[in-house]
């Protein structure tokens, strides 16, 4: 039978790793946004050669499942790090690479494609009149970007960023494959300890649902405020 007391225990046990998961997701969101911004800029200015490389990179990311990429990185990243550091002259043992680093790098890469689309869309949403007005007031390029475009684009992109945050939290559930413990991995561990997997998984699902509900409420409130402002 389904035991609710076991589930309650699992629930509390899983809650312990929620802060770690959320922090990891924030870090990935931050890194992928920076990378996505760079990609968006490259695509915006159509820098020759680089833009084609970015195009293939994005197509590859769209075509490859995160699990495959995660495993690929798990085995390839230590080698890459080893080779790169050898050039600089630093001795690095490929077996010393922490799997958490692999998770961060992999998901930052996969999310960067999404983030670049969001950033592009946000920049598009700033109306031309704003830019023309800034130019007519004698703002130079950097001033226009930092004082007129960026604030408006950021406001526009924030709900989408929160959505990406949820996507990252969900994607982290794959981290258990390379021994990083997040919400789902903790559920598996708790289930294995009590031999009651179903209770642990239901508890984990409830936690994900809760996080998602909180984030959705935040997004809705923010969008309501945005609409009021105009």
């Amino acid at each position, binding site marked *: 039978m*389904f035991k609710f007391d076991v589930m309650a225990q699992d629930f509390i046990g899983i809650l312990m790793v929620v802060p770690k998961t959320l922090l990891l997701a924030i870090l990935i969101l931050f890194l992928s946004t920076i990378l996505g911004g760079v990609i968006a800029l490259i695509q*915006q*200015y*159509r820098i020759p050669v680089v833009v084609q490389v970015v195009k293939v990179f994005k*197509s*590859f990311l*769209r*075509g*490859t*499942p*995160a*699990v*495959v*990429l995660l*495993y*690929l990185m*798990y*085995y*390839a990243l230590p*080698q890459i790090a080893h080779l790169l550091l050898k050039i600089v002259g630093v001795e690095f043992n490929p077996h010393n690479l922490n799997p958490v680093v692999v998770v961060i790098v992999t998901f930052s890469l996969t999310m960067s494609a999404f983030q670049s689309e969001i950033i592009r869309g946000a*920049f*598009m949403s700033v109306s*031309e009149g704003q*830019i023309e007005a800034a130019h007519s007031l004698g703002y130079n*390029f950097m001033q*226009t*970007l930092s004082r007129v*475009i960026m604030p408006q684009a950021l406001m526009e992109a924030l709900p989408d960023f929160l959505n990406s945050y*949820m996507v990252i939290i*969900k*994607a982290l*559930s*794959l981290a258990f*494959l390379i021994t990083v413990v997040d919400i*789902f991995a903790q*559920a598996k561990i708790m289930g294995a300890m009590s031999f009651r*997997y*179903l209770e642990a*998984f*239901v508890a*984990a*699902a409830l936690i*994900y*649902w809760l*996080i*998602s*509900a909180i984030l*959705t409420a935040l997004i809705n409130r923010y969008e309501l405020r945005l609409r009021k402002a105009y």
Partner: protein
Amino acid sequence: MLDIKYMLEITPSLLSVLHVTLIILIASSALGLGLSILVTAIRIKKVKYLSQVMDLFISFTRSVPIVLQLFLMYYGFPFLLSMIGIHVSDFSAAAATVLALTLYNAGYLSEVLRPAYLAVEKGQHEAADGLGYTPFQKFTRIIAPQVIPIALPGWGNALVYLIHDTSLIFTIGVADIMGVANTLISSSYGAHQIEIYLTIALLFWAITFSADTMVRIFEKRAAKYNLSNGIAPKKKAKRKMRILVQKGV
């Protein structure tokens, strides 16, 4: 460095299990589409109680990671059946996979279909009613041709996500490409992991690429139904982008 010859050598053995992935993919995308139409209809017609249940179902499929949904289905479905008196002794992982992916795809798709349906102007409904179309005629001749071009890009995305998620079915023990990868790794004593996973990545890239191409062909064929009254906003965005590029912003 990379052993290309080995990659070519293992491709046939990886391709030999591709049908598992494809069958699960086709089954769950077809069933998912059917279910999503049902869910969308329930939500649009605001059927009492059922509509709330569907909202709950969609929020569940969208907020819980797909791996967890797979595990929940694998462990939870036999339990649910036993509660209503049906005892399943061997619930296969493949069945659990198809069920879980169908629900997941339906949840995602109904969020694509609902806005697409609502995007069709009220005047279109009224005009069809005014011309004496029966509800069935109205749907097949007026509404559906306008819904399809709007929904197609979203459907394409759902299909790509589904392709990605079929790569997870090995976690509950379905012997697909990833399962073969594990066998290959142990038979090569862990010497060729990078080559094996790179080959799989390229295979998935090919599958996604062909799916994208298929959707694009559909989109082209459906484009003739596109009305110029704002249903096709793509051109506008492109023009705006070009202007921004010219201005150097």
